[in-house]
């Protein structure tokens, strides 16, 4: 494959734009989460650095950059070094097919949604590598739990996405949005159920509370990233919040009409919807306690799976009729 100079420049520019957006978005989300959690608990949250602490994340990033990078003795060096990259890179890669606006998409692949699902599963590998490479029992347990959880929740997640694809007949993100021109998919009863299943599974996929057993503080210190410090820890953090953005963006694309909306430019509509979904996820996180490991598995296989399967069958029947 040959690439012309123009194409190369375009590729570099989009990559830079995506990276810039990711770091800005992650820093904003960290601040936002701290504020949301604080107000839910009748606290103020960060208040000192900038207006209402809005520069707190930048201060934290600078601090993390300056921190010593410690490697535990007995760590599996290569695996330990690669793990943060394995966790972060898939999150960045998924941005390639996120439709920010009418024409604002890096590459509208005809298998967009499949690509996102495939790529975001790789970050599990990063978590597993971090758990294994750290030579720490807590990390290893966190990594193992993460893998078990993500494998379990991937199944109902995909089943819920398939119902949407059955309606649109296309895997392309832009085509899925165009199919919602008249009515968002969340207003179809069967797809509303799919949305619920999707949101629950996606929360579990990105290891957020109430499904955060891979990094359950009260049991596993910090789970897979216990041994990481400085910038490597920051990379896990960025990956976590980028994944949060991705799952919300996919939710918006599949069920909430994507960038479609009146008056405002399309990318603003997209961001409004994404941050609204993120707010709901944060709201959930700071409301519910963590579920136990066995409850988590039982919920995935005994509740979500049958419901998702029945939903799939019903959607099929509706479409055939």
């Amino acid at each position, binding site marked *: 494959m040959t690439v012309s100079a123009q194409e190369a420049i375009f590729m570099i520019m989009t990559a830079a734009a995506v990276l810039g957006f990711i770091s800005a978005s992650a820093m904003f989300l960290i601040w936002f989460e701290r504020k949301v959690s604080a*107000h*839910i*608990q*009748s*606290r*103020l949250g960060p208040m000192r650095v900038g207006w209402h602490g809005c520069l707190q994340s930048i201060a934290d990033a600078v601090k993390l950059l300056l921190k010593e990078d410690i490697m535990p003795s007995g760590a599996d060096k290569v695996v330990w070094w690669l793990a943060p990259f394995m966790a972060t890179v898939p999150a960045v890669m998924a941005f390639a097919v996120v439709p920010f606006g009418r024409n604002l998409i890096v590459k509208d692949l005809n298998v967009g949604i499949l690509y996102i699902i495939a790529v975001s599963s790789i970050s599990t590998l990063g978590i597993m590598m971090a758990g294994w490479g750290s030579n720490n029992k807590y990390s290893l347990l966190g990594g193992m739990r993460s893998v078990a959880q993500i494998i379990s929740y991937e199944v109902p997640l995909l089943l819920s996405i398939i119902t949407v694809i059955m309606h649109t007949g296309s895997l392309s993100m832009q085509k899925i949005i165009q199919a919602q021109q008249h009515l968002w998919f969340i207003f179809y009863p069967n797809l509303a159920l799919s949305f619920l299943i999707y949101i629950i599974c996606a929360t579990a996929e990105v290891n957020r509370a109430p499904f955060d057993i891979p990094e359950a503080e009260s049991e596993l210190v910090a789970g897979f990233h216990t041994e990481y410090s400085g910038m490597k820890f920051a990379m896990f953090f960025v990956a976590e919040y980028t994944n949060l953005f991705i799952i919300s963006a996919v939710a918006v694309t599949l069920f909430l009409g994507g960038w479609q909306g009146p008056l405002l430019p399309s990318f603003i509509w997209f961001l409004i919807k994404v941050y609204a979904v993120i707010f709901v996820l944060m*709201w959930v996180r700071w*409301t*519910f306690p963590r579920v136990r490991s066995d409850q988590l598995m039982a919920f995935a296989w005994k*509740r979500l799976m049958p419901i998702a399967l029945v939903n799939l069958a019903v959607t099929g029947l509706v479409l055939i009729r």
Partner: protein
Amino acid sequence: MITFFKDIIRGALSLIKGMLVTLKYFFQAPTTLQYPTQKLKMAQRFRGLVDLHKEKCIICYQCVKICPTGCLAISHKQGEDKKKQLEIFNYNMELCCFCGLCEQVCPASAVYLNKIYEIALYSREKLHVDLLEPDKYAEWNNAGDNH
């Protein structure tokens, strides 16, 4: 089978209930106080440092007598108009146990406990206060409400 669906519905309803509770708190004003800039107003019966309304004092020595730790020391002299005049009213904060008995016993309500609560200091000498001095608590006065 019925319990399966019952469980799901009951669980979903309880989740919504929980989320409404947190939403309510989300929109309520936070209870946190930004301490050095914002300060808590002390309760009416809060017992801070011993203070004195000079002009009300009738020099009866009851506060000195009742003080369990003996932290108050008074002396007086005969004024030119044959009336008692306060000469010294020393208060030793090192000994004070903030019991408030001096305030209770004072027949003229001259001795009282003020609302100052930030009473840490860098030097021990400053713990010996002459209550007759007008701005004896100037160093602490930025704290709380005075009387």
